[in-house]
């Protein structure tokens, strides 16, 4: 059974900004779901919707089921129990938000002591040590302050923090952005290991398709608040059914492939602002294969076989 299921989730921010427009996705224990898409397509909005961290002024539709229970129907007490202990988030850019004047050990112990008040100081310290080792840092680093750690080490601390109360679902929002390739590889290897060893369900959010391709089982590509393609990670990039996923994959150079030598590929134009969406398929102004019907009616996300879905009028055509 899915640990997390989004059913037709929509989020509209104040001022009539529909940032997420009917997203259905699910992830099971031991599974990694990737969410890709350009800046502003609604990735972090989904993250925040899962643990009800959106501003009060935002309107939410559809449902978010955590272990079968609707998050948006939970009492505040129940919600507090669920945060950290069932699901936790590694927030985008969070490695800059560690408290500078407290040791990282104390920061990791905080949610443990809060959620399991009977835990002794000593037991908490032990658990902190274990968590640090789990993310590949020596337990003695618990005494360090954030400024004593490199960016990659701080990101490991954020992951240890997310694991503090033994959640079964972790959502990692851009966990490797701003890290260099070697450290990025270390962090991705760490996350994959945790999924395998602890049977975690992991949602990995990134604007970098290549990061997702190596780590995820399935990938959902978002555009303008909707999923436009979903399927097994390997095929979504190599054999996309939606021109947008194709363009995103194509924009990522493959080192050693002569087609990319002196030929950086991009995708002209900008994604639309959610408050001002074009009619029909929202991708049509940038789509290289658009035709007249594309600007007429909204395009549904439909099954295209082999566990894949795509929202394109041409999705049925052979590629």
């Amino acid at each position, binding site marked *: 059974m899915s640990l997390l299921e989004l059913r037709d989730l929509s989020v509209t921010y104040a001022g009539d900004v529909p940032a997420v427009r009917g997203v259905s996705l699910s992830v099971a224990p031991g599974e990694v779901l990737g969410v890709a898409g350009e800046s502003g397509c609604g990735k972090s909005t989904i993250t925040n919707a899962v643990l009800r961290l959106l501003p009060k002024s935002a309107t939410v539709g559809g449902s978010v089921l955590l272990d079968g229970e609707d998050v948006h129907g939970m009492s505040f007490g129940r919600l507090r129990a669920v945060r950290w202990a069932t699901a936790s988030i590694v927030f985008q850019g969070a490695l800059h938000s560690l408290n500078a004047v407290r040791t990282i050990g104390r920061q990791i112990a905080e949610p443990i002591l809060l959620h399991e008040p009977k835990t002794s100081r000593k037991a908490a310290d032990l658990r902190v040590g274990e968590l640090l080792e789990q993310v590949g840092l020596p337990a003695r680093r618990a005494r360090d302050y954030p400024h004593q750690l*490199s960016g990659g080490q701080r990101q490991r601390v954020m992951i240890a923090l997310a694991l503090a109360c033994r959640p079964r679902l972790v959502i990692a929002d851009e966990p490797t952005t701003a890290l260099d390739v070697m450290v990025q590889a270390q962090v*991705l290897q760490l996350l994959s290991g945790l999924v395998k060893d602890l049977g975690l369900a992991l949602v990995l959010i990134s604007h970098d398709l290549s*990061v997702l391709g*190596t780590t995820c089982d399935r990938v959902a590509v978002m555009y303008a608040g909707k999923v436009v393609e979903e399927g097994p990670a*390997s095929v979504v990039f190599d054999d996309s059914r939606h021109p947008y996923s194709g363009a*995103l994959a194509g924009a*990522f150079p493959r080192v050693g492939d002569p087609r990319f*030598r002196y030929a*950086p590929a*991009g995708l002209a134009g900008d994604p639309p602002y959610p408050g001002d969406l074009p009619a029909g398929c929202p991708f049509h102004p940038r789509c290289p294969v658009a035709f007249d019907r594309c600007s007429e009616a909204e395009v549904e996300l439909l099954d295209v076989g082999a566990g894949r879905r795509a929202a394109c009028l041409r999705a049925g055509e052979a590629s």
Partner: protein
Amino acid sequence: MSALAARGVHVRFGAARAVDGVDLEIGSGEIVALVGESGCGKSSLARALLGLVRPVRGTVECADRPLDYRRLKEFRRHVQLVLQDPSGSLNPRHTVYEAVAEGLRIHKVPGDERELVAAALSKAGLRPPERFFLRYPHELSGGQRQRVVIAGALVLEPDVLVADEPVSSLDASVRGEILALLLRLRTELGLSLLVVTHDLGLAWNIADRVAVMYLGRIVETGDTARVLTSPRHPYTKALLSVVPEIARQDPIVLKGEAPDPSRIPAGCRFRPRCPAYAAGLPAELAERCEKETLPVLPADRGHHAACVLP
């Protein structure tokens, strides 16, 4: 002729030997990528090449003449720095016009300011330029902001651009557009370009030559296609193996992070993390890894690696 060169450059910050002996040339009209992990000294070398830090040893040459630190202002017109905008290189309270005109005013460049600003914006692909004059950074997309930063450098008609991570936090779609722009500037204006990055894909996309830096030294250099398809240094091999590809095999994930430039090990500086050394080498080679002081790689166009392995 080289447009910009480092000759035996050393840069120190206290005990840290951030750049520890580097020879590097950027030929006229050439695109060179300087790659390596965080903290290896890329930006420090770039700053030395821009005259922003003074090497404790070695020299910087511009058009084959040693850089005269008393005439930095003149030098800056020839060699311009392009930083990534998210690092705050645009002032949020300045319009696009003001941002681009700033260089002209600092350097008291004669001529019609409006025309020069418009020309620079067009070269950076912001057309028609007048439409962008009065916009503020927050009214632009990430890619457009990066183009404004590039226009700000181009307005002084430099011969060399030094771009430090010009695209690293941009979306893949936008990234390609900016890289295409850099390539076009080389073909159309004959610009030379040093791109500092930890992204090997970027090097593959646009660079003629690549220099791989590790702990203050260049450990491998050569034609991009050769270095990235037949790497010789174990560090380059490891870097290539972790480039996130859509289908890749056996990543060599190095343990630990960029080592400390205030404690550079004797012998080969990569030895403590070298997978080839760790896997066991014949005794006489291993001894060389531990003891031999490897020479500074030459700045010429050949393929060189600082490693005792053949």
